[in-house]
């Protein structure tokens, strides 16, 4: 059976995507001991908080607010007034590399190792 050029391209792209994705997912920094929650708004650092201390605060961005709750070693965006609510629907972040992004408010909540730049 002859395989058409288009089919070949589909197969190559699929293979590359699966392979690339697997590599990136496996090549994650090993879980360090101390983790911090880094909050950035519009590319600027807003604050860093230890993940093991419970905290409940509201980030005021120029586009709206996001209520961030840190509890039991997890960080989540509990409430926000953004139109798509994607940040609120994102699962809690607990491992290094986990992120919660609110594009309309240009806000990123991510778990980073302590003392990382």
């Amino acid at each position, binding site marked *: 059976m002859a395989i*058409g*050029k*288009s*089919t070949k*391209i*589909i197969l190559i*792209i*699929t293979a590359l*995507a*699966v392979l*690339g*994705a*697997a590599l*990136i*997912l496996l090549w994650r920094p090993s879980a360090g001991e101390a983790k911090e929650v880094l909050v*950035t708004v*519009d*590319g600027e650092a807003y604050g860093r908080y230890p993940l093991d201390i419970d905290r409940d605060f509201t980030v005021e961005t120029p*586009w709206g607010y996001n209520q961030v709750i840190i509890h039991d070693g997890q960080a989540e965006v509990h409430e926000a007034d*953004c*139109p*798509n609510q*994607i940040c609120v*629907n*994102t*699962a809690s972040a607990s491992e290094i*590399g*986990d*992120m919660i*992004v609110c*594009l*309309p408010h*240009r806000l*990123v909540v*991510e778990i980073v190792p302590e003392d990382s730049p």
Partner: protein
Amino acid sequence: MRRGTRTLVYISVLTAQAMVLNWVEGLIPMPLPVPGARLGLANIVTLVAAYTLPWPAVLLVVAARTILGAFLFSGLSTLLYSLSAGLVSAGAMLLTRRVLRGGGAQILAVSLIGAIVHNLTQLTVAALVLENIRVFWAYLPWLMLLAIPAGLFVGGVGRLLLKYVNKLHLRVY
């Protein structure tokens, strides 16, 4: 109908269909590891447009549906992402269609490349706006993986649809 009028009506119908598809898609919850990831049903329309209209009209359909869709449904805050990704991926689809030799799977390949380029563009723009490269690497694997079933599904639907659209003998060129 005069040809110009016919083309205008056809472009308008495609734009309206894409907007409705986009809206309907928003109603279906997607339990995925990447919240906000979508099937991209509106790309069915881009695909049909790429196979029935000259390239400036294809880009016009994409621009019109994203801008009108932003005003009606999704809000202006995400227009930058949908507009850039929509235009760049439509360009990639048009180019692939031209470069790649025909065959039954061509439209699937065109759609797949469209889906991948769409996700890549959106992610790149997001990482640039957020000034955060880690966002790019965190979402890249998931968005590439999800683009494959989404692109092939859209391509399959587009192929079915084009069978009927071609029977209409639109002659909108």
